[in-house]
């Protein structure tokens, strides 16, 4: 089948003895190796190239004047302000009478995640009800970029914050917080 006959049929250069009769089979091992390497490569690239996606649900946007704003316990809210140059400021409770902060904090494991985990626990202890957990309000400023938003949403998913909301209106005090320092 896939054997190469190297030995016979070379009547032209009869003088030279080139053929080795014993070695009529081509060694396919290297070829198989290569084929399997390529198979692995294609298998991995086809399945891994699918983009990841992060589901995001936003509340209904309706400008209904009769709609009453939902009041939430300020002891349960943690507000995160996203600024430019990866700046992030957080505070707990109301800005006028904050429980914690306002403080600059960094993204990632050592920064916001630690704080979120801590707050998540303390809020449940405070309310004594597992259904009334931490509420995180994310306020991306005009200068923040998309990476910041995805990063913070990712943290929400990692930490398992029960509810979070993206809010777009800024109070002047909050703007000052982001710009100052």
């Amino acid at each position, binding site marked *: 089948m896939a054997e190469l006959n190297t030995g016979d049929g070379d009547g032209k250069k009869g003088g030279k003895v080139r053929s080795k009769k014993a070695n009529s089979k081509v060694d396919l091992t290297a070829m198989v190796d290569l084929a399997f390497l390529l198979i692995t490569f294609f298998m991995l690239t086809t399945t891994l*190239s699918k983009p990841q996606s992060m589901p995001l649900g936003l509340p209904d946007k309706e400008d209904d004047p009769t709609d009453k704003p939902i009041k939430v316990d300020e002891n349960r809210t943690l507000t995160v302000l996203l600024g430019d140059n990866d700046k992030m400021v957080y505070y707990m409770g109301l800005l006028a009478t904050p429980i914690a902060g306002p403080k600059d904090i960094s993204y990632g494991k050592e920064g916001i995640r630690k704080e979120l985990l801590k707050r998540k626990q303390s809020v449940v202890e405070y309310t004594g009800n597992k259904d009334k957990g931490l509420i995180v309000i994310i306020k991306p400023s005009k200068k923040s970029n998309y990476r910041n938003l995805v990063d913070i949403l990712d943290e929400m998913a990692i930490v398992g914050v029960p509810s979070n909301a993206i809010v777009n209106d800024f109070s002047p005090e909050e703007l000052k917080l982001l710009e100052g320092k």
Partner: protein
Amino acid sequence: MKKKAGSTDMTAMCDVAFLLLSFFVMTATAKIPEALPVDTPASQVQSKLPDDNLATITVGKGKVFFDLKGREVRKKALELMGQKYGVEFTEEESAKFALMEGIGVPITSLKQLIAMKTGDRSKPGLQPGVPKDSLNNQLHEWIYNSRIANIDVNDKELQIAIKGDAKEEYPAIKRVMDILQDQKINNFNLVTGLRATEK
């Protein structure tokens, strides 16, 4: 050392290996260069994007591109868009459009874009993006008509994915989200890359 080191017949193995190899090569879709390359931010979510019933809105460098999955859906959406803006597309153009990548031109110059060669379309800077300002909100129409087309063809609600550049400023993303929310689409996907290591 043996002289006749076990000479297994590799022929069959080789056949199988190459059969599988050709299968994977053929099923792998060639990656067509994107007209608007974006660097998506990384996240640790594991969910994958669906393969069909999907519209992708790419946001980068202040431009917005629109892409739709499924040939029949694309044809239908193009037809509806043509009706809306009074542009006639021939059967041939429609077929070509079905095979194209994401588009980033106003509907009026879509004909020229379709007439171009595939390689020329993705030249950077050629496509100005789909208009999305409030006076001429073609992105809104694209999304709207694609949803109709998708329900028509596949009988399923269209999923929307936003693929934003990591460095894109938030207001640009916000604008796209607003357009979606105007149509009461409150659930959508954000396309992200895979974060390789725990940060």
